[in-house]
């Protein structure tokens, strides 16, 4: 069945709504407008305003309401339009959702799912183009997943709803239009563990979200040069699948980490550190990173492109690990 990432997410919401009457969707413009990225188009008609709820522009308020609903036994899906606006709800997410199980001595789980769009590349400038998955991956008490493929877009939501604790799903804005084949009977998939999307022997390209497709493209280019690249889709950013990360590095002895987020203090830094800690004696070169340039994401198309990781950057970084370069990969 030919479909898009957007439709896969919508199907996932529909399935959840049908399977469990405690599930409802809440967020800005998710009802009448059909969602900022048209994910929830048609759902208001199908499920009615009780279960597809438009909220005011008040992220802290409706995220808090979602936490309350979850505590009260519901299974809310809170859509925060983009990660950029989630800062307004940081207190609810970090101070409440992530900690209530702990603060209540194990008495109250918060079975909340938050969906957010993330990332740049649509020329919507610095305040709407961030990739701050790494911030949330820093917080114990949250589970952070990043569906990249159609299967994961279709299958991760139900598993996230089944998790008794808060889960944040990050959907990259450039993926919504991605088309591909999805089996008719596609259903829930695990939200745990990384997945090898392409096998290789010479270098591991470790990434998530949109990075997976850039890495796969880079692997094609490298293959033409006789370099066999393995692509690891992390899928889950918290917890990280250490075993899969170390396994691929032990196999190829070289790692390039690709993250649209900034290098300093980012999730790429964490992955690099774990590789160094866990597979130091298997490394044939220092881990390399391809990250977003450390500037507010520019508005002009050519500057935005230059500020985000691109296929040639990944190819270049991989080459640098394989052949005698002029010096350190800084």
């Amino acid at each position, binding site marked *: 069945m030919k479909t898009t990432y957007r439709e896969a997410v919508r199907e996932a919401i529909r399935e959840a709504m049908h399977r469990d009457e405690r599930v409802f969707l809440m967020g800005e413009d998710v009802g009448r407008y059909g969602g900022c990225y048209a994910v929830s188009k048609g759902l208001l008609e199908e499920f009615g305003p009780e279960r597809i709820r438009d909220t005011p522009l008040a992220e802290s308020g409706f995220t808090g309401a979602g936490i309350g609903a979850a505590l009260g036994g519901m299974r809310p899906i809170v859509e925060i339009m983009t990660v950029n606006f989630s800062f307004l709800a940081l207190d609810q997410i970090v101070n409440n959702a992530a900690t209530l199980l702990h603060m209540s001595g194990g008495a109250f789980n918060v079975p909340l799912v938050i969906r957010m769009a993330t990332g740049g590349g649509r020329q919507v400038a610095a305040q709407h183009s961030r990739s701050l998955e790494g911030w949330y991956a820093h917080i114990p008490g949250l589970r952070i997943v990043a569906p990249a493929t159609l299967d994961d877009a279709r299958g991760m939501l139900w598993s996230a709803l089944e998790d008794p604790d808060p889960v944040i799903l990050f959907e990259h804005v450039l993926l919504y239009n991605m088309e591909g084949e999805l089996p008719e009977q596609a259903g829930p998939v695990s939200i745990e563990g990384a997945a090898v999307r392409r096998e290789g022997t010479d270098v591991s390209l470790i990434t998530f979200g949109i990075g997976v497709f850039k890495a796969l493209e880079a692997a094609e280019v490298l293959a033409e040069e006789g370099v066999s690249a393995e692509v690891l889709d992390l899928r889950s950013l918290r917890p990280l699948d250490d075993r899969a990360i170390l396994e691929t590095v032990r*196999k190829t*002895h070289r790692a390039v980490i690709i993250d649209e987020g900034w290098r300093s203090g980012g999730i790429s830094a964490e992955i690099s550190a774990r590789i160094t800690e866990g597979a130091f004696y298997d*490394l*044939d*070169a220092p881990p390399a990173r391809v990250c977003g340039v450390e500037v507010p994401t520019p508005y002009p198309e050519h500057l935005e492109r230059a500020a985000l990781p691109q296929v040639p950057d990944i190819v270049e970084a991989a080459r640098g*690990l394989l*052949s*005698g370069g002029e010096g350190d990969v800084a």
Partner: protein
Amino acid sequence: MSKPYRMPSLGAGMEDGTVIEWHVEPGQRVRRGDVVGVVDTEKGAIEIEIWEDAEVLEIVADPGTKVPVGEPLLVLAGQGDDDDRSPSAQESVEAATPGSAEAESPALEDVWDESEAAPEAAPVEAAPRLRVSPVARRRARELRVELESLEGSGPGGAITLADVESAARGEAGEEEAPDSAGQEPPSSPPRPKDEEPGDKDRHAAMRKAIAVAMTRSKREIPHYYLAHAFSLERTLRWLSRVNEERRPAERLLLASLYLKAVAKSVREFPEFNGFWDDGGFRPAPGVHPGMAISLRGGGLVAPAIHDADQRSLEELTKGIRDLVQRARSGHLRGSEVADPTITLTSLGDRGVETVFGVIYPPQVAIVGVGSVVERPWAVGGMVGSHRVVTLTLAADHRASDGHRGSLFLDRIARHFETPEDL
């Protein structure tokens, strides 16, 4: 607080050593400077010393075991255990014992940190650290590949896994072709007893060590050479006058004058006393000239006479006699072979007039002295018969220039000519 005592690096190119015997046992207290055991290396049997007061808790490497440089030999309990030292005293002990098991440097840093009284003494490494990827270093140890001899093909010229494996294929031929299927061989397999290096093996190993060091020297070090001949007449007369009154065992050796002249001069020319590593010159805080001593059966070692600039001619004479005897009987100490800061070579009485040395890396200079020969020599318009010697200097042009080299050589000659001031 227990900590390992690791296999020291006893010179550039040393990869491992075999424990011959221990002079200590678990429970025994040792003091700084004690010889705790003997290790067989390509330079012969070396007595290894301990650099702190401690108690031996456990012997990790039994006699017969081959241990890579930087790997634990003993487990020690530091001073902090059984007396109430201040925390800072404990910290300083810990600071002197780097925890990492890196291949060459830590053990040697211990030696330096402790042997230099001055607290600001900079740690000195035996050799500039090669750029080797971690997996390549591990594999090289497994395959017994000499990293020094490899050209790196990786980022920044680093030696990679592929470099090591192709070198192993080239060297080992059919008998030890590496398994490229990725199957892990047991790490650091212990050498069976019947493969212990005998004298013959040791000479072969020493030849190989000399080959590695000298090849590296000639490949990396841009040598320049200077020579200076001068009359030794005055010095030799002074020496025979002094020695006339002494019993044979107490007579000064000409070599002690030579050693002292070099040691005093190098104080004024510090760019010849130290190490070239990590792309720069690091002067050594002390003057520890290595005396090149040829061994019976071939090969040579250049153990250090520590702080030669501060010792009397009597002490130096005694030191030289002791060192030559111990070098030839194979009882050198770890600190002596590990830390020379400049090398002196002499071909002795039966040698030729001039010797140009090859610098022992990472040192930056070697001073040579030829045989004393009788030659017609003009002084003040008069030609007479003089006993003449030719001093030479081979120095690293990265660290010093010929002008300074020539002043240095001239200064040595002047000290040599005025032995009463030495």
